[in-house]
């Protein structure tokens, strides 16, 4: 299947160290706005018990799941030690001029 590039919103609509939820084709996705300005997207579901990662605390490129504090790297999608697992990541792109955020699906 060919990938498509979808405009989902503007970076200014997400607070720094915070997140926004969105749905694309019935997939729940969460966008995180990090302190360094980057915007990362992962599936909004912790591999442990399905906790909503959008409600977790963001610390330097990692999010802590609000349910049992699993820590997940937002770039690789990998769950950090001592827990194990992986969430789906989506490639994002930000237009530095307009602040438009695109997701590659």
């Amino acid at each position, binding site marked *: 299947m060919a990938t498509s590039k979808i405009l989902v919103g503007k970076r200014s609509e997400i607070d720094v160290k915070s997140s926004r939820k969105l*749905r694309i084709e019935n997939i729940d996705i969460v966008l995180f706005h990090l302190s360094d300005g980057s915007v990362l997207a992962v599936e909004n579901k912790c591999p442990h018990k399905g906790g909503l990662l959008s409600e977790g605390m963001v610390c330097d490129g990692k999010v802590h799941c609000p349910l049992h504090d699993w820590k997940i790297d937002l770039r690789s999608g990998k769950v950090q030690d001592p827990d194990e697992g992986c969430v789906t990541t989506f490639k994002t792109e930000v237009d530095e001029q307009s602040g438009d955020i695109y997701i590659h699906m």
Partner: protein
Amino acid sequence: MKKREKLVMIGNGMAGVRTVEHLLKLAPHAYDITIIGDEPHPNYNRIMLSSVLAGSTDMKEIVINDWDWYKENGIKLVVGEKAVRIDTKQRQITTQLGKHFDYDRVIIATGSQPFMLPIAGSNKEGVIAFRNIKDCETMLEASKQYKKAVVIGGGLLGLEAARGLIHLGMETSVVHIHDYLMERQLDEPASRMLQRELEAQGMTFLLNKQSAFISGRKRVRALHFTDGSEVQADLIVMAVGIRPNVELAKASGIDVNRGIIVNDEMETNLPGIYAVGECAEHRGIAYGLVAPLYEQGMVLAKRLAGIDAPGYQGSVTSTKLKVSGVDVFSAGSFIEDASRKSLRIQDDLAGTYKKITIDSNGKLIGAVLFGDTSDGAELFSLIKRGEIVEGREKELLLGISLDQLNGGNPAARYEAMPDDEIVCGCNGVTKATIVDAIHSKGCNSVSSIKACTKASGSCGGCKPIVEGLLSVYAGDAAAEPVKEGICGCTTLSRDEIVAEIQRMKLLSIKETMNVLGWSEPEGCSKCRPALNYYIGMLYPEEYADEKESRITNERYHANIQKDGTFSVVPRVYGGVTTPSDLKKIAEVAEKFNVPMVKFTGGQRLDLLGVKKEDLPKMWEELDMPSGHAYGKTLRTVKTCVGSTFCRFGTQDSIAMGIRMEKAFERLNAPSKVKLAVSGCPRNCAEATIKDLGIVAIDGGWEIHVGGNGGVKVRATDLLCVVKTEDEVMEWSSAFLQLYREQAIWNERTAQWIERVGLDYVKQALQKQEDRLALMSRINKTLSLTTDPWKEIIQDKELRKNFEQLADIQTAAQ
């Protein structure tokens, strides 16, 4: 290239899979591995079944190796099929479905099965064992329809099953053939103490009873005993012992006794066929506890990997009863005779018992602990080492200091410990794994070892040994980090951090982390909210609260539920409401299709199952202040009716409660704070298990502090008795502010008072000038708070965080 040998394992349980796991580490590509298991599950932690039943663990959490593990390691897994014959000539295994598997080597790890008493009626519906996931499910089902459960067997497993059934709400009796419980692990005094404790938890005991038959039509109705008596039962759980599964071995010409007979290499009488775990019998013993089975697995894995290592020498075992609120530990042999002497100490005030047994050579050979099992790990390690303890028996009995244990040379003891020795019994972590974490993963603290290996992560009993290994193997690297900070990002304690913030007047989280040398630039979910609280507590006027560093509930001003929905609890001062407020709550609940409306434990109404997007709209329509039922803040002030209506009431508890709730609402605190006011000493508002509880007496008020009704119940301590409502406010304000200024973030008043002592609190509040100073500080803080729901309703920037950014559906399929 040498052709890979075919290894087939029969059985898919803990001991067997553990062996394979270890083998894969030692010789990853040596074998083509096939595992045949008859339970339709991947390998799970059977030991944790009692926790599943007790409700503290979920079925999914006890799976040790999930399906992916088998796939990733190239293991062929055949489940739901039973091996029926090993053809040792053709080197082939046959299953009951007629499939054949060729082998070069075989591991038999068929485990054991529960022994079912061969009495009449034992095949009736409702008679089960306690062994696998299915039994657990049967118990869960039965508890929904039936009331009376009987457990046959007062051993470790029987008691854990009984505790689980009580948790499920069943009236549970335990039948035991012996005249006291757990006679294989405990002596009579310890057993009696255990019995009393379990009786207090609601268990009934029928001791000295031999079961004769089970009556009932289709389903069980009663259990009858040989003495003619009987007990009603809707469910009977048999936990009278286990029997190794030896049929397959026997049918294949392998020597068996009670179990499958193996030598020190875990090999049976037939070459290339091994047995491990509960089905194996080594030097006359078939073990049923996890640690020895893991030790056997380690020996066998080495043998299969071709590593020359000493054989299995048998195990000294220790047991711990996994029943909440009861601490029991037993190890080695603890029965005295002509050559074995015991020392014991029994404290009926504290409810503790300790016994140690020493043999004629002066070696410690056994121990029994009840009530306080903190010395268990150390004593067990002394027993295993077979050290002579002559001359210091009394020190061991009265409590152990590390110095005494180490005998002056701690390093030698940890160095002498074999690499395979299991340090953490709960998670099966060996010394080698811990040392490897120290050497190659850079772990230099107990918490980093825990994060890396899970050692000391469950019951924590092995923590002293992990600390010991750390000091020996990390050397200088461990010297500094042995001190544990508030989280993994820092080595500083709460008091040091607060002092530094004050000394340098640090006004942001980022700056604080920067100046104090945090290892993670943006901290973690533990230190961020803590720093946010400390700075805000110290500088309420100057500090801008950082909402990104608040825990989830405090960011959304609602309580997150397991499915990601939230709950809404409006403020109802003192639990006193009006018909119009009730109507409004009802209308909002209807309008937003709230799935459940419930009264909380703190006399409020809880609207549960609300979608995040709906929160601001609901708050707006409710037009009531936030009830703060979600944060580390003042929750509720619970009141009884008091002198307004009650014929016993001595004071107006409702007015007092409302005044307190209006004064302290929105207060940020280290942890949640619950208050209550009772109008007389009958104490209907349950004030003596609250953080701050006021009880009216004739002509005055008692102020109680530091209570908790949660996991660990703690009754309050009486702080003082005062005469007027203004004095109640003065003392309450001063107490709450002292707690705010001194406690560790996330520490309840109960834990704080246990830590600092009531005398400290009394002394700090003794002088009126100190109380007034504290009161003016809390009033300052309170004057700066606003209602968070209103704030969000009015601010579009804040509201956006509750909404979805986009919902995109492309038309093309």
